[in-house]
Structures are given as C-alpha cells and as structure tokens.
C-alpha cells in the first residue's frame, strides 16, 4: 500500500502524555468525596435524626439522597468534561460509560429524594397537596427546581439504552444537552432548603464553590475543545478506496502539529461542510499519526454514509482527540494478539506499525470474505515484518454450524501461548463479547484484554 509506505517516512506526532492515575484511583477519589459528604451529613444531625421518629427520618433521608443526587450529577459532569488526566487514565469510552452509570444512579436517587422530601415536609406544610404546591412554586426557587429536575429526569429516561436506540443520535444528544440547564436550575434549592448547607456558612461555601468549579470545568472543558477543533480544522488530503465499501481518508494540514496521538487511538470527526457540521463520529486511526496527517478508514454503510458522499479532498474537518488508551505501551514485553472484525481492523493496522520487530504478533481477522478486509495486504506485510502471523476467518457465522470461532479451545489452537498474550479486540459488539469471553476462558487476565466499547 502506497500511503503507508509514504507515511512511514514522516515524523510521528508527539505521543499522548502518560499518567500514573489508574481507574482505581479515580474510584477512590469518588468514594472519598461521598464519604466526606456522608460524614458531614451525619455530623450535622443527619444520623441522629434517622432514629428520632418518622418525620425526622424522612427529612434525614431526603437530605442525604439530595446530597448524593447532586454529587452524582457533579461526578457525571466532571467525567463528561473529558479532562485530559481522567481520559488518559481510563480512556474516553470508559469515561463515558462511567458518565452513563453516574447519570442513571442520579436519576434513581432523584426519585428517592423527591419521594422522601414530600413526607418529610407534609406535617409542617399541611398535607400532601400543600407540600406539592409548595415544592412546585410557592416556595422560592422551587419552581426552578421542579422544572430542572423534570428535565434531568427526561434526559435520564431518554438515555436508557432501549429508548435511546429508538431515536436518532443527534436528537438524543441535543436533548441531553438540556441537562446543563436542568442541573443549574435545581441548584439554588440546595442552599435555601438544604438544612445542612443553609445552617453552616463554611459548609455552604465549600459546596457552592465546588459546584461552580465543576460546572465551569464541564462547560469550558468540553466546549472549549469543540471550539478549538472547529477553529483549527484539518483538511482532507487524500481519499483512497480500500475495499468495495471502505475508504481511507488522510487528514492533514498545518494544525495536525498541534495534536498528540499514537496508534490505537481514535478521533471524533466533524466534517465542516453544509449539513454535516453538527454531527460528530468516532473513527479509529488506521495508521500511526504523523506530521503528514491522521489516516482514518471509514466504512460506507449503504444508507446514509457521510464519508463518500460528503467528504471531498480539500474539505475542512474538525478533529477532537485523539482519545483512547489502547496504545502500544499496553503490550509491555508480552506477545500481542489482535482479534478484529469488519472495519475493526483499523486500530490493528496502526498498532502493528508500532510493534518492535521481535514481538511476533498474532492477528485473527473475521470477515465474510477476504476482499472485504480493509488494509489486509498492509496488515500481512506489517505482521511479517515483526515475525507475526495473520489468520483470516471468512464465511458467514450461520454457516459455521455452531462452531464458535472465539471459543477458548479454538483460540488456544490458533495461538499457542495464549495465556501470556495481551489481546486487543475490536469489531462489532457481538464479536467483542464472544472474543472476550473466549479469551477469559483461555486464561487471559482481565487487564490483558483491551476492548473499546463506545456505549455512550
């Protein structure tokens, strides 16, 4: 393949910064924040209220769940800000997966908060109806709060997998953005009604301060990157047809020098052409990013593919990223094993370019037909260079008559010392699950299986 040969003469881009932060460290920080808030709640009377009669117990429960709701909101916001450190620690896909979990939990706690706050306030507000009326407008700031939490609830419900899959991604995404408004609107009642916050000036100061900081981080951290990518776009340099339905696109230009990236990462691409500028799509880099540009390989899905129909040489393209933690460092001195299906070969192609010549990688490719595999010749050449092997498993899954190509047994047959490998799996969701299961059964540690599942 000519482009790859040409690319290798170029200087690779600076690698992304490494971080010592691990996923566990992030979990510890989050748990610690929750512990501090819980302790503050218990010390300001929450604990003793719990055991002093129903109405007090309701109130204590309402304030604790209220605190947790907004904490989960803040955690979710911080995660979605895609801060460099957190992204380097766990990768964008896990970051956004955690974001989703935080959001779901927040929705659940919001419901608990509402249904504990009402019985807590019913005795002093004169019954259910009066409490609800107070909470939806008669109490200062509560109209804001009621509508804000309704928006948050809508966003959480729309993000449930089954519902989200029914609407177009962008519709869902734009509705998702209203959560900023929802969270901001429901903030003030925490101060006016939250007894823990309203009673102590210093607690209040810390709470308001950190909320403002987190909100600003989320807003600017997220949107500043978008702005930067749009104001410093790359240009489409070349478009090559790889197979019948895939093309590789080289994105270059002066601004590429601002990026740091490595093989195995992916970028969020926004074509700055009419009718497309408001959509972003993730694509894996299919070659080591160099000063010549980033190469991505794009599959045309028969229907509304943007790539071939909309991208032309010279078009401006905004690029966010590169993101992802599946960089060549993950292999250490272990043998690399790649399992890829369909257009999932792209990161494999890039990673192979960065492997040392004695690494002896094994590449298992899954496709209906050999000529549907993009960059196959390139992959074969790269694997041969470092003493590796490439197996292409073709044919339809139904035609295999129940023989699972990714069972532990078949994997062990194809790869002799499989338990001492580090595996990278990329492809359709079904393939990723099957391969991960087989690899686990074949004796690979969880940390040695790398998948990136963009489930956001």
């Amino acid at each position, binding site marked *: 393949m000519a482009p790859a040969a040409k690319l290798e003469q170029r200087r690779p881009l600076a690698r992304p910064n490494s971080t010592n932060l691990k996923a566990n460290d992030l979990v510890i920080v989050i748990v610690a924040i929750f512990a501090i808030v819980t302790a503050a709640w218990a010390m300001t009377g929450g604990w003793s209220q719990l055991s002093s009669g129903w109405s007090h117990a309701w109130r204590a429960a309402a304030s604790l769940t209220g605190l947790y709701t907004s904490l989960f909101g803040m955690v979710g916001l911080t995660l979605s800000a895609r801060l460099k450190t957190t992204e380097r620690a766990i990768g964008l896909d896990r970051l956004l997966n955690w974001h989703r979990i935080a959001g779901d939990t927040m929705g659940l706690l919001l419901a608990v908060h509402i249904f504990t706050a009402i019985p807590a306030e019913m005795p002093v507000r004169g019954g259910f109806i*009066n409490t609800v009326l107070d909470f939806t407008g008669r*109490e200062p700031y509560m109209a804001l709060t009621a509508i804000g939490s309704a928006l948050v609830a809508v966003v959480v419900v729309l993000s449930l997998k089954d519902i989200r899959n029914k609407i177009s991604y962008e519709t*869902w995404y734009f509705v998702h953005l209203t959560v900023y408004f929802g969270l901001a609107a429901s903030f003030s009642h925490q101060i006016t009604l939250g007894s823990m916050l309203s009673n102590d000036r210093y607690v209040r100061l810390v709470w308001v301060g950190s909320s403002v900081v987190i909100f600003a981080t989320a807003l600017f951290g997220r949107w500043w990157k978008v702005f930067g990518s749009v104001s410093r776009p790359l240009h489409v340099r070349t478009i090559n047809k790889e197979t019948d339905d895939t093309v590789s696109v080289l994105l270059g230009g002066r601004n590429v020098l601002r990026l740091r990236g490595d093989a195995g990462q992916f970028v969020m691409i926004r074509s700055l052409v009419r*009718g497309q500028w408001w959509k972003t799509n993730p*694509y894996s880099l299919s070659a080591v990013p160099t000063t010549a540009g980033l190469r991505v390989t794009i599959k045309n899905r028969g229907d509304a593919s943007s790539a071939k129909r909309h991208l032309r040489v010279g078009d401006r393209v905004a690029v966010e990223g590169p993101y992802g933690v599946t960089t060549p460092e993950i292999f250490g001195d272990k043998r690399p094993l790649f399992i890829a299906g369909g257009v999932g070969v792209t990161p494999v192609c890039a990673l192979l370019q960065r492997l040392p010549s004695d690494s002896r990688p094994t590449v298992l490719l899954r496709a209906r037909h050999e000529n549907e595999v993009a960059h196959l010749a390139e992959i074969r050449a790269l694997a041969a260079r470092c003493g590796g092997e490439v197996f292409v498993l073709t044919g339809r899954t139904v035609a295999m008559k129940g023989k699972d190509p990714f069972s532990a047994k078949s994997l062990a047959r194809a790869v002799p010392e499989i338990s001492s490998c580090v595996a990278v799996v*990329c492809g359709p969701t079904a393939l990723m699950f099957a391969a991960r299961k087989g690899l686990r059964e074949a004796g690979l540690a969880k940390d040695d299986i790398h998948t990136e599942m963009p489930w956001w």
Partner: protein
Amino acid sequence: MTFIRRCHGGELMSSDNSSPSSRFALARRLAPALALTSAGVALINVLDRPVDLSAFGSAGVADIGSAADAGAGQMVTGATVPAPTTTTVTTTTVVATTVPPVNGAPPDTTPAPGACGAKKSTGSTTDIVDRNRVFGTLVVTAKFASNGELCDVAVNFDVWDRKSVQIEQYALPKLNARAKKAKSANIQGVSGATAVSRAYAASLQAAIDAKPL
C-alpha cells in the same frame, strides 16, 4: 430513524433512513431539545409564585396564644397557609399589634384587678439562630396575674422565609401552652424547632426577669 451502535473502528455513529441531506435535518433534531427547554422556561414562569412574605401580617408578625381561656390559646395569622393541626388552636384574623385582645373583648388598658394581664412585661428581642444561621427574631410578652404568677404569653415573630413561618406557627402555640403550664421559662423545647424553642425560652426568661412589681 435508527441508531446503530458501532465500534470506533469506523462504522458510523448514527445513520438515518430518512434523507440526511434534507435541509431541515438539523432543525428536526434540535426541535425536541428546544421545545423541552422553552416549555421548561415557560412553566417556571407560570409556576414560580413564591408566597410574598409580607402577607404574613406586618413583616410576618403573627400573634400567638393571647387568649386567656385555659387551653384555648388563639393563634392569629394572616397567612394562606393552613394552620397546623393542633386542635386547641383556632385561627382568627390578623392582629399585628402587641396588644392582644383579652377574652374577645376590645383591648382594655386597665384590666380588672385579679384578672390575667394585670401586669405585663415584654422580653428581649431574641434572634432565632441555629449554629451560624439566623432565621429571624421573636419577642415574648408575658402577662402576670395580680399575684405575680405567669398566666399568659404572647409572641411576635419576624422570620425571613416561608419554611420558618410554618415551623413557628407549628411550634409557638405548643411553647405557649407549655410556658403557661410550667408558669416559668423552664420548658421543654419542641422537637424539630430547636432554634425557636431556645429563643423563646431566652426571651420569656427576660420578660419574667423584667416583671413589674
């Protein structure tokens, strides 16, 4: 419309069966979010009717428990809030003065000797404060029988938020009843209203200390 979950290997994130190049593609996708937001803003404007605190008599003053009938204290309020469900409390009209009606009769500056209220004393204006937060102030007016015994208590309070008003209306009749029964400021506080109980006791003690001879 469909949403296709994809690997970041390059499959498209979203795709539309309807024509993607439609001029209204963006508008159609933005519409739900915009509708939701504007409906939210509109609803907030409709719903946001915080009760004006000046509706609680003059600056939220309510005169509580001023009647002499034993066990039938009067609670006076101008609020639209329902009175707490204390059966001994009846709601009448606003009297935002410090001179309470006695036995429903017009205020009498010279009560009959021997009746409750022969001597009167007003306690200090005390902050209702819990830790660092001040909710408002209250002032207790104590009435004494001619033998010098505490026989009735009236309270004026001035608090700054609606929730405090409700707590006050709930707690002060109880505190009045307790003070009348104990005939001193040594009373048990109302749970859930610690701050106001403390302020009440302090102000009442000051009123008793200032008892005219």
